[in-house]
């Protein structure tokens, strides 16, 4: 029997529905998550299944969405809060960073700080400078948070379910451009542990660590490279904090070369952290400098060709690989 195919957005909605059904402490809140089913359709059907008691449409009040979710968690609930896009997590960084991430510590080990804060991330759909960003690097810098960024329907479902069950606050970033992409997702329940990378493709010549929209682009690039005789190993960290650095180091020890590919801006992106860690821990195994493929430091334009130009593409990955595999 061929495996069931569903879209990334359906996988998100399915995970949320299953978790709400499983645990009566779990609920969903955010702007337009209920009746409409999400501005990007990623919570479609959740309201129909559970109604307004477990699915709260909120006013446009990002600080209140996260603050309320945190308060509700502290009083025993397990909220899934949606901020429509990571770009406007800028509005509730105090609630995320100073409150949620530190609540356990600052309240003397309070046990109930279990909440998931989801948002669409990255660009690629012509929405411009304030709707195309990716701030995973900010959250990776914050002790107390976990940061997850899955790239396939299978991963997003399994990781979102784990995130909901995790006793820590989890920032859960969903690349908006992938919502419509389908892939195999079994009917049976499963979870994927946070903090485990997956080798999405094996190879011996170079390691490419990629996540978000760069993961599918990198897998395509690896195919192209294979046709030219270069076998790239593609590692998807899936969780960026805690980072499964061991899997990355193991791969680099095998290949001797590393590229990190992400859509966030190059300067100060998570690519820098991975590069720093790998050169520190696998210095003698590196046959070439580690390279980063990322958006050059610009503001994402709306015009389609300009947007395509600045965002790293399959080609960008191919060229970067060739530049250090010669």
């Amino acid at each position, binding site marked *: 029997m061929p495996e069931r195919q569903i879209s990334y957005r359906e996988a998100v909605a399915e995970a949320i529905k299953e978790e709400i059904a499983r645990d009566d402490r779990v609920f969903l809140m955010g702007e337009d998550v209920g009746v409409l089913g999400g501005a990007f359709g990623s919570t479609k059907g959740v309201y129909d299944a559970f109604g307004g008691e477990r699915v709260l449409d909120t006013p446009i009040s990002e600080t209140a969405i996260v603050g309320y979710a945190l308060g509700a968690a502290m009083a025993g609930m397990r909220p899934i809060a949606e901020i429509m896009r990571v770009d406007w997590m800028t509005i509730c960084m105090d609630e995320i960073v100073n409150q949620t991430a530190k609540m356990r510590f600052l309240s003397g080990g309070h046990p109930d700080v279990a909440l998931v804060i989801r948002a669409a991330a990255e660009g690629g759909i012509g929405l411009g400078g304030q*709707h195309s960003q990716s701030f995973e690097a900010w959250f990776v810098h914050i002790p107390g948070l976990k940061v997850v960024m899955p790239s396939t329907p299978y991963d997003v479902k399994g990781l979102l379910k784990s995130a909901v069950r995790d006793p820590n606050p989890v920032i859960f970033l969903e690349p908006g451009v992938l919502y419509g992409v389908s892939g195999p997702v079994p009917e049976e329940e499963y979870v994927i542990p946070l903090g485990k990378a997956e080798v999405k493709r094996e190879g011996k010549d170079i390691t490419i660590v990629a996540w978000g929209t760069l993961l599918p682009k990198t897998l395509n690039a690896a195919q192209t490279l294979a046709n030219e005789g270069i076998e790239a190993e593609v590692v998807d960290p899936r969780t960026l904090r805690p980072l499964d650095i061991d899997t990355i180091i193991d791969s680099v020890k095998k290949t001797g070369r590393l590229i990190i590919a992400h859509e966030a801006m190059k300067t100060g992106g998570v690519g820098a952290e991975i590069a720093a860690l790998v050169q520190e821990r696998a210095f003698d195994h590196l046959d070439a400098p580690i390279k980063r493929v990322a958006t050059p430091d610009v503001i994402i334009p709306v015009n389609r060709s300009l947007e395509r130009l600045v965002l790293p593409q399959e080609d960008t990955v191919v060229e970067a690989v060739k530049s250090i595999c010669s």
Partner: protein
Amino acid sequence: MPLTKEALLNMYRRMLTIRHFEEGITEFSRQGLVPGTGHVSIGEEAVAVGSCSALGDKDYIISTHRAHGHLLARGADINVILAEVLGKATGCTGGKGGSMHLSDFSRQILGTNGIVGAGINIAGGVGLAIKMRQTGQICLGFFGDGAANRGTFHEGLNMAAVLQVPTVFVCTNNQYGLSMPQCKACGNIDISARANGYGMPGYRVDGTDVIAVYEAVKSAVDRARDGEGPSLIEAVSYRLRGHSMRMDQMPGGSDYRPNGEVEDWAENKDPLKIFRSKLKELGYINEKEAEQLDAECRQLFESAADFALNSPEPEPETAFTWIYAPEGVK
């Protein structure tokens, strides 16, 4: 001082221009010509035109994601605005900002915003500069009913009251913030009632009546110009289309509204229809003239479309400019 016939006809012309522009781009969007998305304000033209008609030439405006109407009401170049919506090199940001980032400095239109509620503080700050520089201008800041629930509304209005800046805050209550009915998003549906909390006058006005909007905004503008500080005006209207052109094309993208609600407003509270009747009543226009005006305004869009569609795509290098000031600028 009542508005002259000429002024009123001019207002009607602007409203028609906005309507044609937004119907036109909706069609362009369906054809895939609009990158990203765009938010039309069909049904809200009276707020844009009533408000902007109350401004002097040198006054500033700051607007939102739903801004075409504000720009056109303020007299921005329709060609440039349309080119921007289509992401063309001839647009006001050279196709880089798109529909959510329109501006025209020659008309003191300092910009619009993709972040709901972010313009409120900026509008206050423009008012602060005006006050410090004693230029006698005022700044008008537009925002929506949804934005009124953001913290920026609170901080921005209180700060304006404290600093007594000449900013007029105009809330277009089109009764929805995306899918959220305003009556479910606000503890008190009367947004203008919040003004009292900041010690500032608040007025609620029928936003489908362009003259009523004009009068309310005009008195707030006069007040601000006289150094008496900021005001809040809530103009109640209705968004006759979906939240965005993109969502309107999505299945179920507008299912959140009660049956018949849109049709009812379109039938009975379309600001263009209302104003046209009023003008006829006043004897300022007859059916034939009205149709001619309509055709003229449609023609304005057509010729803008000619310009914009034939405009070049931006050059690749432009993706890398305007991020920092050019070296040497002081």
